[in-house]
């Protein structure tokens, strides 16, 4: 028995004590060298225009201003687009309200922010496109869409017993990480720059800055200790701030900090893609889907950014957990004059899943059946109906088991009956209930990104271990989990392992901490590094002590070879004295995966995460207000490295997903100006939005694939558990028309859209 295994332990977050005492340093908390300057960005106050004159004289004269930079000061590439161009650092032809035009460095943040307001800008105004349907009409796209097809859906739809043709809208979402965008740059010798950036992607930050400055990548060193919340909002959206900050530092030859004001942050950066779906579906009397045709439109904003991959993931998840034999999906990546939509937990997958879930819900309502039954009969099966529309065989399917178990443990059927009874008696307040499944594919769909590096040092003097990887700690607990993994591999105490900040000069060519795969990839790279050190030790011991085998067990601070025992500390000391390397880099690339983007087929995912949630809500039919009464979740995280951290991800993801589909509403004025750019106008869930009863249970399972400890990631998938809230609300609304009319409800289901939907039902029902 392994007494001191640090894996599968509910350890507190490695920074927990520092978080609660204020000693966890975020970028704004780093001690500033003397002479540090502070930046601010001047941005377009028009949605689409040509700048005919940018008069910055008053800005230069403003108190405390040391320097002003515009596009003229950029020696290299004036763009921060990650895959394609389209995101200029400073533009002369703004395409959205909030697009950066220039920046200043001043002696204080307040003075810098005051100064940028003094610019005199003359605009030649052009007509903006804000609505995605208008963009489609005008054929304005950031990238070409695609058409994916399996079987003969059109024929199937025509021949089906029943058919529904409808539309569905899904709202955008602001990340609202609590730590706003920030960068801090200290110039070094040789024109090198030390860049502290609150980013999920240090390597790309490095590349983009190098290109901007026309310098080599080895001049730029990006360091990230922790990020105060990312959720995808710092996968690419941090680049422009790190770039501008470095540019200001280069020009002034001073350290510069650029910390965004919350409103400016929200106005400048991209958000989740809002979607619009047009669909037609044919199904039989049992509710089995026979054919689906979907037209998917997404708001991509002004540039491609990550929209290609995000919209691909929407297509890859349009099935959620359902086998759809015949389907046709066409998607359109609409260009609008709004900030460039970007990565957000779920990465398009959740939008695709909501579309099919809404379809299934409508099928059930059409047939007057329980939607749980319709879901079940359409699920992927184990030995048949197990090939996805992109040709991947599902080998780890547990959705049927999870769903059945949760229906039982949540007492779904009885509660559904009771709710119907309650609704008959209650005239104004109505209840609703729904259960929804989640199946989410794990791996970057861009196959080459599925790689990671690590660097592990063992210090001979005391046996302590230092670990670096490409993983970014942004609250998901990856540092804690990687330390647990390394401690377990070396059989040393968890407290002897330190995972240090992520730096591009230690780990090169990293992928973003994204796609839920950070620990899977970086943890495995760390294990690879540990194994190389162990190999060094084994060869040394085998040779020196003339052992038959070089196999050893690392446990409880001891290393046991067959025929020779060491304490870990004495072994590494001895190895050092015998000139054996105690340091190694490590590397990992995900096996098995491949994907042909042209044919849209292959195995893009190593494995799938599964889960399901039952939600019960209460709505007020006079006001549209609603309350989450109870939520039951059953989720599969394999054999977790840290069950407490995974539970935190599940609960937090659920609440974030529920927020996306209920109270979180991103709104633009018809002229393209963002209306919701502060906590007073954009509401993320607060404590009283929590379910009154919240039961989160783990489905016991192991990952079939070779992932560390047979665990499964949590990360993104739990966000989609929040879908159940939306359909519970829809169920409550349907009760107003005695479940005879399918409610027209789009997301987010705000109090206003709930009341609108009730009005619609009442109009028909009371006729």
């Amino acid at each position, binding site marked *: 028995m392994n007494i001191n295994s640090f894996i599968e332990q509910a350890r*507190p*977050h490695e*920074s*927990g*004590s*520092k*978080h*609660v*005492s*204020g*000693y*966890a340093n*975020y970028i704004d*908390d780093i001690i500033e060298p003397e002479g540090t300057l502070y930046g601010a960005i001047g941005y377009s106050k028009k949605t689409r225009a040509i700048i005919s004159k940018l008069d910055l004289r008053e800005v230069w004269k403003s108190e405390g201003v040391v320097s002003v930079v515009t596009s003229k000061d950029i020696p290299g590439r004036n763009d921060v687009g990650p895959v394609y161009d389209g995101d200029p650092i400073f533009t002369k032809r703004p395409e959205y309200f909030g697009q950066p035009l220039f920046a200043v460095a001043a002696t204080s943040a*307040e003075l810098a*922010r005051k100064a940028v*307001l003094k610019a005199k800008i003359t605009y030649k105004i052009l007509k903006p496109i804000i609505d995605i349907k208008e963009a489609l009409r005008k054929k304005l796209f950031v990238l070409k869409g695609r058409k994916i097809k399996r079987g003969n859906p059109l024929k199937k739809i025509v021949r089906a017993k029943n058919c529904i043709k409808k539309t569905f809208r899904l709202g955008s979402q602001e990340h609202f*990480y*609590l*730590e*706003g965008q920030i960068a801090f740059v200290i110039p070094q010798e040789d024109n090198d720059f030390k860049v502290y950036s609150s980013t999920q992607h240090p390597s790309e930050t490095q590349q983009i800055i190098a290109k901007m400055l026309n310098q080599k990548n080895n001049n730029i060193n990006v360091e990230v200790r*922790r*990020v*105060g*919340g*990312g959720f995808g909002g710092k996968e690419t959206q941090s680049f422009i701030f790190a770039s501008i900050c470095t540019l200001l530092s280069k020009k002034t030859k001073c350290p510069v900090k650029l910390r965004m*004001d*919350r409103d400016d942050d929200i106005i400048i950066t991209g958000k989740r893609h809002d979607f619009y779906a047009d669909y037609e579906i044919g199904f039989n009397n049992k509710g089995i889907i026979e054919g689906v045709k979907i037209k998917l439109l997404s708001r991509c904003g002004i540039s491609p950014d990550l929209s290609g991959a995000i919209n691909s993931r929407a297509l890859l998840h349009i099935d959620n957990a359902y086998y759809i034999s015949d389907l046709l999906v066409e998607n359109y990546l609409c260009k609008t004059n709004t900030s460039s939509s970007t990565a957000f937990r779920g990465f398009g997958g959740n939008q695709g899943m909501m579309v099919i879930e809404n379809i299934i819900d409508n099928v059930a309502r059409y047939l007057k059946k329980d939607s749980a039954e319709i879901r079940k009969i359409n699920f992927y099966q184990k030995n048949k109906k197990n090939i996805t529309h992109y040709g991947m065989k599902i080998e780890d399917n547990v959705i049927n088991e999870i769903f059945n178990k949760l229906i039982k443990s949540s007492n779904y059927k009885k509660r559904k009956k009771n709710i119907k009874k309650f609704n008959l008696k209650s005239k*104004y*307040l109505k209840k609703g209930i729904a259960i929804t499944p989640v199946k989410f594919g794990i791996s970057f769909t861009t196959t080459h990104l599925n790689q990671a590096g690590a660097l592990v040092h063992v210090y001979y003097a005391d046996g302590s271990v230092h670990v670096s990887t490409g993983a970014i700690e942004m609250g*998901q*607990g990856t540092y804690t989990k990687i330390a647990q993994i390394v401690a377990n591999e070396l059989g040393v105490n968890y407290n002897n392992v330190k995972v240090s900040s992520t730096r591009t000069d230690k780990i090169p060519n990293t992928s973003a901490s994204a796609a839920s795969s950070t620990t899977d990839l970086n943890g495995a790279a760390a294990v690879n590094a540990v194994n190389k050190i162990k190999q060094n030790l084994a060869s040394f011991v085998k040779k020196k002590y003339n052992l038959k085998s070089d196999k050893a067990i690392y446990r409880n601070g001891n290393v046991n070879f067959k025929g020779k025992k060491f304490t870990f500390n004495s072994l590494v000391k001895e190895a050092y004295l015998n000139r054996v390397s105690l340091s190694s880099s490590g590397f990992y690339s995900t096996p098995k995966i491949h994907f042909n983007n042209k044919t849209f087929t292959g195995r893009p995912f190593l494995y799938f995460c599964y889960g399901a949630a039952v939600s019960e809500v209460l709505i*007020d039919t*006079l*006001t*549209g*207000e*609603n309350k989450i009464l109870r939520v039951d979740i059953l989720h599969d995280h394999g054999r977790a490295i840290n069950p407490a951290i995974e*539970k*935190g991800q599940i*609960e*937090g*993801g659920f*609440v*974030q997903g529920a927020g996306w589909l209920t*109270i979180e509403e991103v*709104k633009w004025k018809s002229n393209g100006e963002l209306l919701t750019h502060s*906590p*007073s*106008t954009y*509401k*993320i*869930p*607060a*404590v*009283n939005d*929590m379910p009154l009863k919240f039961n989160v249970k783990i489905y016991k399972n192991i990952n079939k694939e070779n992932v560390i400890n047979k665990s499964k990631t949590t990360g993104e998938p739990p966000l989609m558990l929040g879908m159940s809230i939306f359909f519970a609300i829809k169920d409550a609304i349907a009760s107003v028309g005695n479940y005879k009319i399918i409610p027209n409800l789009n997301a987010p289901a705000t*109090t*206003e859209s709930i009341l*609108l939907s009730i009005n619609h039902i009442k109009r028909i029902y009371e006729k």
Partner: protein
Amino acid sequence: MTSNIVKFVYKNKICEIEDPDPNETILNYVRTKLKKTGTKEGCAEGGCGACTIVLAELKKNNIDYKAINSCIAFLPSLEGKQLILVEDLVFEDKLHPVQKAMVNYHASQCGFCTPGFVMSLFAMYKNNSSYKEEIIKDSIQGNLCRCTGYRPIIDAAKSLNTESKFDHFSKNKNITLSLLKKINQRDIAIYNNNKKYFAPKSIKQLKNIIQKESNSKLISGGTDVSLIVTKEKKDLNSLIYMNSIDELNYLKEKNGYIEIGATTPLINLESFIKKFFPDFSSILRRYGSVQIRNVCTVAGNIGTASPIGDTLPLLLTLDTQVVINGKNKTQILPLNSFFLGYRKTKLKKGQFIQSIRIPLSKKNIFKAYKISKRIDDDISSVCASFNVEINNNIIKKIKIAYGGMSNIPKRAFNCEKILLNSYLSDKTIKKAKRLLEKDYKPITDTRASKEYRMQIAKNLLEKCFIEIRQKKLIRINF
């Protein structure tokens, strides 16, 4: 005697700042001058709670711990208080029970909001003896967390029920008390470059200053005014801070009305008014976060005259009177005619609101509703208030007012007229609902469309009478 030095207690010492910049926020001071970076800026508008600190105040011979948003509190408001930061909770290298609970219950993920939660829960821990779910939720409704979904934070807070209530602040209580008393607050007058700031201690002094500095902005709480500095990046060149005047911080019941002093924080009113008008108290709980309610005041709400100030429609239906003071004698004005236009009132230069009076009646039914996107800390789409007297099913008296329906909080006179002296029936209500269209022309904005506003205004009227007739509440939220 006036002083230009702001004095406050920090770490068992009295700290002094001479002529501080009156537009500097406490947050900025703490982070850049004290170099304590545990307190975070999340939004600079008092909307996320990351900047929460605790100010301890003398209350008779006791200490009151108040969580506030340091991002919208100006530095001179530290005068006479003890400043407590998240770092100060650690004692002899050991975490405070609140901090320990947060670690043990996995209540931090990215950790950026965490110091704010710790401080809100610390104030709760000090001010209460047990921590029920309702108190916990109330204490952290002004703290946003984007990672956890709140469950572990609530569990951490619940676990405090079994923790010792004695911490190093209890241990140092006598020292703190003596230091706070030693400061012996004076009238403050600060001149910093071209900025002025006055914090008189008495009504008499206030009257003097307000005449001399008649172009000054009056602040009573200042949670709204401060955004001019933090968000619009403008200077407030002359401020008169009313909250040092203890004479104006009172709540009393006499001669058939209740009187509320101008500088009484809403948090005090909330508990006081519960027995007279329970719905008033409920609305106050959703008025804003604890951090906001700890500093903002009814007088401030009236003075700001915001169309969405949540106390205003309630006060309008309650026939509230505003007691105005200034150069001349005190004047009593009905609130009904106090608002002239968008954020404009009858208050003239050199005048200030001294108190408000709410008449009490035994026969009336008072109801208030707030509809907003989010339950906690949100601005109303519509706030409605009804004050009704019914006798034998005849509506004998009726006052109706709405917020969010017009450019000022306004009574629904047309609607009231049709209801007055009429028999309470479905037909009457239907007619009255229609007349609201004559009373209001709401607008579409970030929070709601004009159509939705009108519909909920009508539906709330209906709801009010349904509740009266069925003699029960039909509510989802408190």
